[in-house]
């Protein structure tokens, strides 16, 4: 079982973004999508900290720490890009103006519930813009690893961690597959390279439904 690399997962997610969409990218794996927009598409990337028209990573040595993404890493601005303050940025999010947002997640359920802000225990929680995004973006998608570092499924029937939002996730990209939460299980959209269905089922904490 090989599956996709992290870069290939992000590229697969980028492939699903339609021309002309306004797209927010969350912290972590979703940040990679900015570098993998398919040629020939005009997609306007939104960054919660006040950027529309966020571009790819800059060349080494050409970084500006006052032009950074949600993950605090340096980015660029495309021609036509704009800056604005935080209340306007979240008006775009909460006000339903963002077509697609792509988030990272600790857990997603087959009902589309997502947990990505609190890992429990005595570690400090960190919510950022995730709750605003799941409440306001027109479509929520997730890029995540299929299992935890210790091998437990992260695609599950019921959240074990505090929810960020309920019934909001429409599509999930992992190293093993592209899946859509479909109520009773995850509907298989695409298997990763050299991944077979039994292996995917073993790695997933809820039924896999045929596409």
């Amino acid at each position, binding site marked *: 079982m090989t599956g996709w690399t992290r870069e290939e997962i992000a590229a697969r997610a980028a492939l699903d973004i339609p021309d002309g969409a306004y797209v927010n990218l969350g912290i972590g794996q979703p940040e990679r999508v900015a570098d993998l927009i398919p040629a020939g598409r005009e997609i306007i990337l939104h960054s919660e*900290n*006040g950027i529309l028209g966020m571009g790819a990573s800059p060349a080494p040595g050409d970084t500006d*720490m006052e032009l*950074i993404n949600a993950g605090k890493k340096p980015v660029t601005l495309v021609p036509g890009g704009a800056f604005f303050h935080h209340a306007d940025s979240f008006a775009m999010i909460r006000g339903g103006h963002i077509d697609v947002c792509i988030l990272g997640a600790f857990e997603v359920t087959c009902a589309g519930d997502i947990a990505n802000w609190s890992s429990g225990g005595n570690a*400090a929680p960190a919510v*950022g813009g995730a709750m605003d995004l799941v*409440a306001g973006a027109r479509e929520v998608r997730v890029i995540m690893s299929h299992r935890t570092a210790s091998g437990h499924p992260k695609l599950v029937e019921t959240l074990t961690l505090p929810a960020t939002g309920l019934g909001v996730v429409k599509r999930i990209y992992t190293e093993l597959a592209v899946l859509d939460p479909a109520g009773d299980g995850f509907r298989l959209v695409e298997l990763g390279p050299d991944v077979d269905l039994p292996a995917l089922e073993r790695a997933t904490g809820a039924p896999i439904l045929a596409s």
Partner: protein
Amino acid sequence: MIDKRFSNALGALHDVPDGATILISGFGEAGNPTELIHALIEQGARDLTVVNNNAGNGEIGLALLLKEQRVRKIVCSFPRGSHSHVFDELYRAGRLELELVPQGTLAERIRAAGAGIPAFYTPTGVGTEIARGKETRSFGGRDYLLETALSADFALIKAERADRWGNLLYNKAARNFAPVMAMAAKVTIVQTRHVLEPGDLDPETIVTPSIFVDRIVHVPDPVRESDHLAALDKARAA
């Protein structure tokens, strides 16, 4: 003549009392008023409530203010960072109170305070632990949470250009929380890289109008947090 300039940061912060609530601009490194925070450390006020998106990185600026134990409570959305060890240690030891607020709710609570709106309903956080203890009301068949305005005694913000009246322009994504924070504090103190005369800024492009600004400090060459973090990493590796 209106002249809001102070000759140094310590002078601009002379009247911050113990127990004050302070809004501090910045998202990650971008827009942090590091020199104003260092002057606040020198000034000595303690038992502070600080509002920032994050909770400091490395041992500079807000992280240093926390390390010096001047802060009783921090209100923020994302205290996790690449170098947030000062916050982590204080939080785990129970020596720093945390109020975690979703980022858009944080921005809107500050904006509301500046706009004279005492509270508002938002869809953010419905059905989560954030909703606990908050009034929920349905509009058009959807549930919303009541969130209250977040005002403050002082705001410390960073601008790129200011005229002596206090009209402000920012640099790229360093704008972030500064315009709403400038509106929401009784006293707004700005550190700026460039100081100009009224009329020098194009009125069509002014982002923060001077009415929201009280004091201006010229900091032409602010410290870069990324340099500090790189030095910290190098020292640890050695």
